[in-house]
């Protein structure tokens, strides 16, 4: 049906036709762009941030995959790396930051504490894993994980993105229809 949201007098149903015909190559291109441009949010939740420093440093150099060093504002970021323990005071902040990030967004749980509470599983102030508040894409073990593990996690995330489908409707959050 012709309505203002999907088509108009100048383009007709061109949008939809283009969308269907160009889906496969477009998907490859878009996913390729996303794979090599994962910008992480600068959020340190606990002591694993030391190893994050090492990962962005010269020996492991995560920028080889196009991942910048920690990025300032979350509006431009794609990956939220939970660097260690999330406690009860930090949890609402982490949630807020995740909500402020634009789609598509990915979460990596870095270290045992963010996976399950780790060494602090029985502490009164620590969440039993960050997946109680966020959807997590990649889990990384270790306390703290070695930098190579983050590179592995990054490649796993890239494979995940490569296999994902493009859905334009997914990003619409507050729409009436």
């Amino acid at each position: 049906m012709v309505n203002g949201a999907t088509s108009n007098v100048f383009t007709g149903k061109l949008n939809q036709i283009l969308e269907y015909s160009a889906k496969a190559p477009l998907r490859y291109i878009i996913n390729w762009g996303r794979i090599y441009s994962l910008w992480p949010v600068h959020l340190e939740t606990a002591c694993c941030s030391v190893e994050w420093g090492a990962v962005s440093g010269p020996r492991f150099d995560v920028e080889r995959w196009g991942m910048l060093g920690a990025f300032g504002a979350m509006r431009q970021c794609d990956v939220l790396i939970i660097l260690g323990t999330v406690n009860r005071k930090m949890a609402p902040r982490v949630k807020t930051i995740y909500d402020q990030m634009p789609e598509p967004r990915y979460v990596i749980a870095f270290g045992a504490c963010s996976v399950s509470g780790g060494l602090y599983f029985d502490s009164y102030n620590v969440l039993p894993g960050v997946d109680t508040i966020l959807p997590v894409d990649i889990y990384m073990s270790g306390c703290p994980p070695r930098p190579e593990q983050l590179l592995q996690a990054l490649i796993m995330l890239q494979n995940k993105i490569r296999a994902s489908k493009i859905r334009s409707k997914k990003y619409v959050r507050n729409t009436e229809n």
Partner: protein
Amino acid sequence: MSELTVTVGPQHPGSGHFALIVKLDGDKIVEVIPDPGYVHRGDEKVSENKNYIQNIPHFERPAILDASNMLFPYVHAVEDLMKLEVPVRGQYIRVIMAELNRIISHLYYFAIYGIFVGHSTMFMWPVADREHFIDLAQMISGQRVGFAFLLPGGVRNDIPEAVKERANEACNYFEKRLIEYERIFMNNPIFEKRAKGMGILSKEDAIKLGVVGPTLRASGIKSDIRKDEPYAVYDKLDFEIPVSKDGDSWARAWIHIEEMRQSMSIIKQALKDIPSGPVKLNLRGQVRPPPGETFTRAESSRGAVSFYLISNGGMTPYRLRMITPSFRNLRAISHITKGLLLADLPPAFWSLDYWPVEADR
């Protein structure tokens, strides 16, 4: 009143794991209220449920980049209550690990300092050189950062033969690099302008606030637990304590550079003098101090770290309080940032080497 309140942190490139509530008048800081607790994990309570060996990895987590120094007072406290005499070789290895950790931690300090003043090369260079010392520590202990190497009664294992050569290589290389650091960072005119005379902590205020470590020494007080109350084998080694009278951000950074030089000299001496013999006592897993209390101190890379251990003779500590240097330096943050510009906030408070995880415990 045209006051603007901005919250710097916990998600902010210039804060890390804690928040600063900054009240601004124009660009000038009226007041800074630190808001820690974003990494509070209840270490003191958790430790009451674990036995003395299980507690070892716990107590290095607050300052994982300074693991061995954090464990020093803990093992001393247990040894003090149990009246243990640690073999001399074990004590030498402890000192080597502690000084390696000091260099690793100080290099991380410079990395973050570089980022906070917008000098990205100064982030990368220390992180690169830090890997050399991490390699050494890894050769000795088998882990990258969280070594859990010090035990009550000694250290976990002996050092391999090749460490001596590698350590000398790394130290000789790094001594040259330190000169380059001074050239590119410490003596950079822009950095000097931004750091000299900024965030001054006078001698009187330093005493009044009870700050510790490089912050205290930069304010002109020659205080170092390694000299004041020599533990392990520090009284047999020859080293200097750098002191500055200025008390500003630049002086605090300079103290860190000099301390790295001293640490390298200590490592070289310790590797030369190290006697042969056992490295630990065979306690057969019986780490169970008798009832009593003790208060032990050690000089970590950020300053004096103390443990107040109260045992009731049980398997687990009755109460264990850890007093970390960052928690004591937290007192100085709002003091030194008063009247600065907003731009100077991250470099000024980072010059205290404030590590939030350590302060929150």
